[in-house]
C-alpha cells in the first residue's frame, strides 16, 4: 500500500500513517510528512513516534527533523515536549532541549529532574549563569540527591564560585562518602578558599578511593607540592607515570617537584620527557628555560624561553623571562626595548614593572634574587691614604715576617714525627756515643785532647752540625716553601734566613743542653774561653748560611744537587777533624786538609774549648773570609736569580 503521490493531501491520514509506522515503513512516513506542508497539531504524537523510531534506527538527522516538527506543532503537549527534550538532549541540540525543558518546567514547577536536565542542557550551550540557577534549584529542591548536589557544585566550581560550590559538594560527599570524584571536587573548592590542609586531606582521600585515577593524582600532587610534601608527591607521581607514561602533565609535575627539592638536573630530565610528548607547550618550554637558567646554561635557557614566547606571544611570564635573559646577557638596549613592550602590554602588572625597574637600575639579580649586588658604591667609606713606609716600618715588617716564618718552621721542621724536636738532641747524642764507644776501644786510653772522649767528640761535632744543619736546611728552604712566596711580603731571602736562624739557634740550645748533661754526669766540660767558643760558632753559622744560600740557588737550578751535597757532607765528616786532630796527620795531609774551612771552624771551637789546644795551622781569618765570600755569593745569586727562584714550580 502506498500514498498517492500525485494528489496532495490536506491532512495526515492518521490511520494510514500509523499503519505505515507500525510496519516500520519509516521512509514512506517521512516522505509523506515532507510533502504535507501543514500537518495539524493532532499529528504531533504520531510524528513523535516516527521520530523515536528514526532515532532508534540511528537516523539522527531525520529524527531531529521530525522532533522539531512535533515540538512546533504541540509544544504545550507535555508528552510531546517530554519526548522532544529527551530527543534534543541526546542528539546534541542543546538549545532546543533547553526550550523543551523550560516548557515542561513551566507546566510542572515541582519537577526536580527537569531542572537538572535543563541545567545540563544549558551548561552544554554555554549559558552558565542559567545552568547554575537551575542546578542550584534542583539541588535545593532534592537535598538528598547526590547527582543534583554534585552537578550544582561542579558547575559553581567551574564558574569560579568556590564559596557557593563548597556546600553543594560537601552535601554530595556526605551522601556518597565513597565517591572519589565528589571528594576531589570538594577538595578543589576548599583549596580555592585557601584551606590547604583540609583540601589536601580530601584530595588524599579521593586518591585512596580511586588509586588509578590520573586526574585525581594530578590534583593531589599539586596540593602536596603546595604543602611542600615533595617526597609524597613524587611517590604518587612515580606510580602514576608507571601506569600512564604518556601523560605530559605528570612529567611536568615531576619536574616541578624535583625543582622544588633542588634537584635541577632531574627536573630538567622530567620536563624534557613532557616536551617529547607535547613539543608545543609554551609553559613547558618556559619552565625548562627557568631550569636551564638555574643551571647557568644561559644560551640554552634563552633558546627555550624564546621558543615559549614564540609559541605563546601573549605570555607575560615568557616575556619577563626573556627580559631577564637579555639583562644577564648584557644586551641592555634590547632589554630596555623589551621592557617598554612589557609595560605597554601589561601596564598594571607589578612583576613586569619590577623587572623593567631592574633593567633601568642595571641591577643584576637572578630570578630568585640569590645574589647580592656587591658593587654598591654609595656606602663606600674612604680610608686615609697609607703613608710611605719608613725604614723602621720596613725593618719592623721584616722582623714580623721572620718571626712568623720561624714559628712556622718550629712546628713543621720535623714533619709528622712524634719525637719532633727530640731529634735535634738525639742526633748529636748518638754521634757522640758511637764515636766514643768505637774510639775508646781503639785508643784504649785518653782522647787526643782533654780527659774525656765525650767532651772531645762534642767539641768536634757541635761546629760540624751547626754547619751541616744550616747549609742543608737552607738549601731546601726555597723549594719546600715555594708556596709561601705567593704571599707578597714573604721573599725568598726571608725564608732562607728564617731557616738559617732557626737551625743555628736550635744547635746552640742543643749544645748548651749537652754541656749541662755532661755536668750532670760529673764530667768536667766547661769551655775555657767562652768568648772564643761563641765567635767560633757564629763564624761557623755564617759559613753555613753562606754555603746554604749558594746551595739553595743551585738546588733551584739543578734538581738533584741536594743528593750530591748530602754525599759531600759525609765526606766532610772525615775531612774536618771531628774524631781526630789534624796534628796527628803528616804535614802534607794536614796542609791539604787546611783548605777545608770547616776544619778551621772546628779547631777554632776546640781552641776556645780547651785552653791547652792552640794549633799553629788554625787561621781564623781564612774561615771568616770564606764565610763572607760564601754569603756574598749566595746573596748576589739569590738577588740575581730571584725571578727564577720565586717562579712557581
Amino acid at each position: 500500500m502506498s500514498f498517492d503521490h500525485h494528489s496532495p493531501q490536506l491532512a495526515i491520514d492518521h490511520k494510514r500513517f500509523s499503519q505505515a509506522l507500525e510496519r516500520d515503513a519509516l521512509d514512506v512516513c517521512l516522505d509523506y510528512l515532507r510533502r504535507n506542508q501543514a500537518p495539524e497539531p493532532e499529528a504531533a504524537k504520531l510524528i513523535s513516534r516516527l521520530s523515536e523510531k528514526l532515532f532508534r534506527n540511528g537516523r539522527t538527522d531525520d529524527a531531529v527533523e521530525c522532533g522539531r516538527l512535533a515540538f512546533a506543532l504541540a509544544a504545550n503537549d507535555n508528552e510531546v515536549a517530554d519526548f522532544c527534550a529527551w530527543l534534543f538532549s541526546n542528539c546534541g541540540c542543546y538549545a532546543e532541549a533547553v526550550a523543551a525543558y523550560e516548557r515542561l518546567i513551566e507546566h510542572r514547577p515541582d519537577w526536580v529532574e527537569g531542572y537538572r536536565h535543563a541545567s545540563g542542557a544549558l551548561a552544554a550551550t554555554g549559558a552558565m549563569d542559567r545552568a547554575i540557577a537551575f542546578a542550584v534549584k534542583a539541588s535545593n529542591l532534592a537535598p538528598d540527591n547526590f547527582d543534583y548536589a554534585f552537578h550544582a557544585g561542579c558547575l559553581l566550581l567551574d564558574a569560579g564560585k568556590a564559596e557557593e560550590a563548597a556546600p553543594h559538594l560537601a552535601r554530595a560527599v556526605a551522601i556518597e562518602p565513597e565517591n572519589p570524584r565528589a571528594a576531589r571536587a570538594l577538595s578543589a573548592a576548599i583549596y580555592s578558599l585557601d584551606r590547604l590542609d583540609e583540601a589536601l586531606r580530601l584530595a588524599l582521600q579521593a586518591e585512596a578511593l580511586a588509586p588509578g585515577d590520573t586526574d585525581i593524582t594530578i590534583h593531589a600532587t599539586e596540593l602536596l607540592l603546595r604543602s611542600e610534601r615533595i617526597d609524597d608527591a613524587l611517590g604518587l607521581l612515580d606510580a602514576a607515570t608507571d601506569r600512564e607514561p604518556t601523560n605530559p602533565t605528570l612529567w611536568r609535575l615531576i619536574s616541578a617537584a624535583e625543582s622544588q627539592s633542588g634537584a635541577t638536573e632531574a627536573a630538567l630530565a622530567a620536563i624534557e620527557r613532557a616536551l617529547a610528548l607535547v613539543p608545543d607547550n609554551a609553559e613547558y618550554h618556559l619552565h625548562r628555560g627557568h631550569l636551564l637558567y638555574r643551571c647557568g646554561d644561559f644560551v640554552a635557557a634563552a633558546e627555550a624561553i624564546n621558543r615559549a614566547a614564540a609559541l605563546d606571544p601573549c605570555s607575560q611570564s615568557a616575556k619577563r623571562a626573556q627580559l631577564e635573559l637579555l639583562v644577564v646577557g648584557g644586551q641592555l638596549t634590547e632589554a630596555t626595548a623589551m621592557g617598554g613592550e612589557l609595560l605597554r602590554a601589561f601596564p598594571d602588572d607589578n612583576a613586569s614593572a619590577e623587572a623593567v625597574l631592574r633593567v633601568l637600575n642595571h641591577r643584576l639579580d637572578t630570578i630568585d634574587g640569590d645574589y647580592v649586588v656587591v658593587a654598591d658604591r654609595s656606602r663606600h667609606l674612604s680610608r686615609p691614604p697609607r703613608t710611605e713606609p719608613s725604614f723602621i716600618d720596613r725593618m719592623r715588617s721584616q722582623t714580623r715576617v721572620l718571626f712568623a716564618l720561624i714559628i712556622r718552621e718550629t712546628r713543621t721542621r720535623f714533619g709528622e714525627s712524634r719525637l719532633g724536636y727530640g731529634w735535634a738532641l738525639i742526633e748529636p747524642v748518638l754521634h757522640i756515643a758511637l764515636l766514643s764507644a768505637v774510639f775508646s776501644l781503639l785508643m784504649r786510653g785518653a782522647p787526643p785532647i782533654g780527659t774525656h772522649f765525650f767532651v772531645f767528640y762534642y767539641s768536634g761535632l757541635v761546629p760540624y752540625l751547626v754547619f751541616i744543619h744550616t747549609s742543608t736546611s737552607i738549601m731546601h728552604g726555597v723549594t719546600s716553601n715555594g708556596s709561601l712566596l705567593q704571599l707578597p711580603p714573604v721573599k725568598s731571602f726571608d725564608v732562607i734566613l728564617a731557616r738559617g736562624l732557626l737551625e743555628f739557634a736550635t744547635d746552640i740550645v742543643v749544645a748548651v743542653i749537652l754541656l749541662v748533661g755532661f755536668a750532670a754526669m760529673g764530667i768536667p766540660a766547661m769551655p775555657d774561653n767562652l768568648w772564643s767558643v761563641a765567635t767560633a760558632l757564629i763564624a761557623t753559622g755564617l759559613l753555613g748560611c753562606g754555603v746554604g744560600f749558594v746551595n739553595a740557588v743551585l738546588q733551584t737550578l739543578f734538581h738533584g744537587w741536594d743528593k750530591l751535597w748530602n754525599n759531600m757532607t759525609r765526606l766532610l765528616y772525615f775531612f774536618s777533624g771531628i774524631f781526630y786532630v789534624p796534628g796527628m796527620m803528616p804535614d802534607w795531609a794536614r796542609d791539604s786538609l787546611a783548605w777545608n774551612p770547616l776544619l778551621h771552624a772546628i779547631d777554632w771551637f776546640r781552641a776556645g774549648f780547651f785552653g791547652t789546644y792552640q794549633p799553629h795551622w788554625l787561621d781564623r781569618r781564612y774561615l771568616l773570609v770564606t764565610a763572607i765570600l760564601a754569603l756574598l755569593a749566595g746573596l748576589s745569586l739569590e738577588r740575581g736569580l730571584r725571578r727564577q727562584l720565586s717562579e712557581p714550580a
Partner: protein
Amino acid sequence: MITLDGVSKSYPTAQGGRRIVLDNVSAAFPDGSNVGILGGNGAGKSTLIRLLAGSEMPDRGRIRRSSRVSFPLGYGGTFHGSLSGRENVSFIARIYGANLRETIDYVIEFTELDIYFDMPVNTYSAGMRARLAFGTCLAIDFDIYLIDEVTEIGDDRFRRKCALAFRERMRRSDIILVTHNSRTIRQYCDRGAILADGELRFYEDIAGALDCYRRLSETLQ
C-alpha cells in the same frame, strides 16, 4: 693604588715559544674603583694577578703599590698540611701584622670549622680548605683585594654569607678581579679593562669594556 710602569711579562709555553702577557704596559689602578679585567683563556689573567700581588716579578719594568694588596682571594696554597687551621691563620696574620686574636676570632666565626679549626689542615675536605682560605683573606684588612675568578664555595647559605662578608669588606676596600665571565664583572665592578695581546686596555665603564670584549671574542671565534 697600584701603578704599572713599562711592565713586560712573558712565560714559556709547552710548545717552546713564549706567551706574552704584558708588553711594555703602563697603567694605574686608582683608589676607590673596582676594576674588572676580562681576558680569554690563556691571555695571562692569573699571571697578571700574581704580578699585581707581587708574588711574581715582571721581566721588565716596575710595579708600585701604595696600598696593602691582598694575596689572591681564596688562595690556600700557603697552608701547611701538618699545621692546624689556627696555626696557619696565625702565620698569615703575623706576616701581615694583623691583630692575632681578632683575626682568629673572625675566621672561627666565618668558617664554622668548629673542632676542625684545631686539626691539621690535611684532614680537611676541599670545601673546608676553601672556606679557611676565603675567611683568612677576608679577616685581614687589605686595601685592595685581588680575585682570580670568583669561585663560589659551600651551600647556598654559605654562599650568601660569603657575599655579605665580602660586601662588608668592599665598603672599605677595592677589588681587582680577573675573569672570563662578563656577568661577574657587572656584579662586582665599576670599571672594566681587557687583557689581550699583551695589552691592558681600560674602559671608563663596564658597558664599554663588555661591548669591546664581546667583539673581541667574536673575532677570535
